[in-house]
């Protein structure tokens, strides 16, 4: 800006334009990592709900007895990670989904999904950085 301070701008993104773009696998009402569209589709009460990788902070798997848990954390204001409120938000006064936790008895699958989400996040951050470097 005018004061020479870099202002992080919020860049708009979109998972899908039409509902026929959902991966066919959403039929099974399970978590689907859609690499092509940089989106994780989560089943909420049976409905496939897309979350763009840009909204996701991280995903982690844990175990408790016979159950495995997959927790997906989303970016939201006031999390104070690194520099406080570093992340730009389009509308910080909105309501945010901050996390979603699922459970299953198939722990290997959750390990796999957590890895896929981490990789997708890493790739997306890398791409953003490359774009930024090009602009500079």
């Amino acid at each position, binding site marked *: 800006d005018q004061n020479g301070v870099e202002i992080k701008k919020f860049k708009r*993104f*979109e*998972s*899908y*334009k*039409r*509902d026929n*773009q*959902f991966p066919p696998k*959403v*039929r*099974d*009402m*399970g*978590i689907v990592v859609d690499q092509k569209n940089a*989106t994780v589709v*989560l*089943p*909420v*009460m*049976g*409905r*496939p*709900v*897309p*979350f*763009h990788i*840009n*909204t996701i902070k991280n995903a982690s798997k844990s175990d408790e007895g016979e159950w495995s*848990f*997959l927790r997906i954390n*989303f*970016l*939201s*204001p*006031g999390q104070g990670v690194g520099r406080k409120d570093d992340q730009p*938000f*389009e*509308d*910080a*006064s*909105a*309501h*945010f*989904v*901050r*996390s*979603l*936790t*699922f*459970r*299953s008895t*198939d722990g290997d699958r959750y390990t796999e999904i957590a890895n896929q989400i981490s990789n997708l996040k890493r790739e997306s951050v890398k791409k953003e950085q490359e774009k930024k470097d090009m602009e500079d």
Partner: protein
Amino acid sequence: MAAIENFDNIYLDLSKEGGKCRFAESGLGWKPTTGGEPFTLQGSDISGAQWSRAAKGYEIKILLRNSNIVQLDGFQQEDFERLTKLFKNWYSATLENKEHSLRGWNWGKAEFGKAELTFNVQNRPAFEIPYSEISNTNLAGRNEIAVEFGKGKKASAGKDQMVEMRFYIPGTTTRKEAEGGDA
């Protein structure tokens, strides 16, 4: 218009098994393909209906006069016209086309309706949570509300069971609001 309209491979309230759905002037019925107890609904109990994309195909969400909700998933896109006519002529109800948000955003507005919480992204629903599925809610931190799901039918219908969802609600949020007590 026929006196009876049939649809196959329809899923009732996220049932694991598909079934046959039959509409008549007096009401509708659903029966699992492999047999078993049929589910029936009187036409006079229907207060509204919504059409939207769901997991198996297209879904009709029927809103009942007693605030309950019935979901039928697995219709084809081209069934819409036939079903719109049928709901209008037989149940005097409008089958409202409700497009869901596909943007992939995690911010919007949580709104509390009669039977469910709707999370809207740019004035389009992204998802809904029936109050009947919520087992507990608590303030997990400043501006953070945790909603827990028990062994509700819909939360645990798929292979991935949703156990908790946390919301960030800025500003002053009362517990009452979080539980839909004002609705």
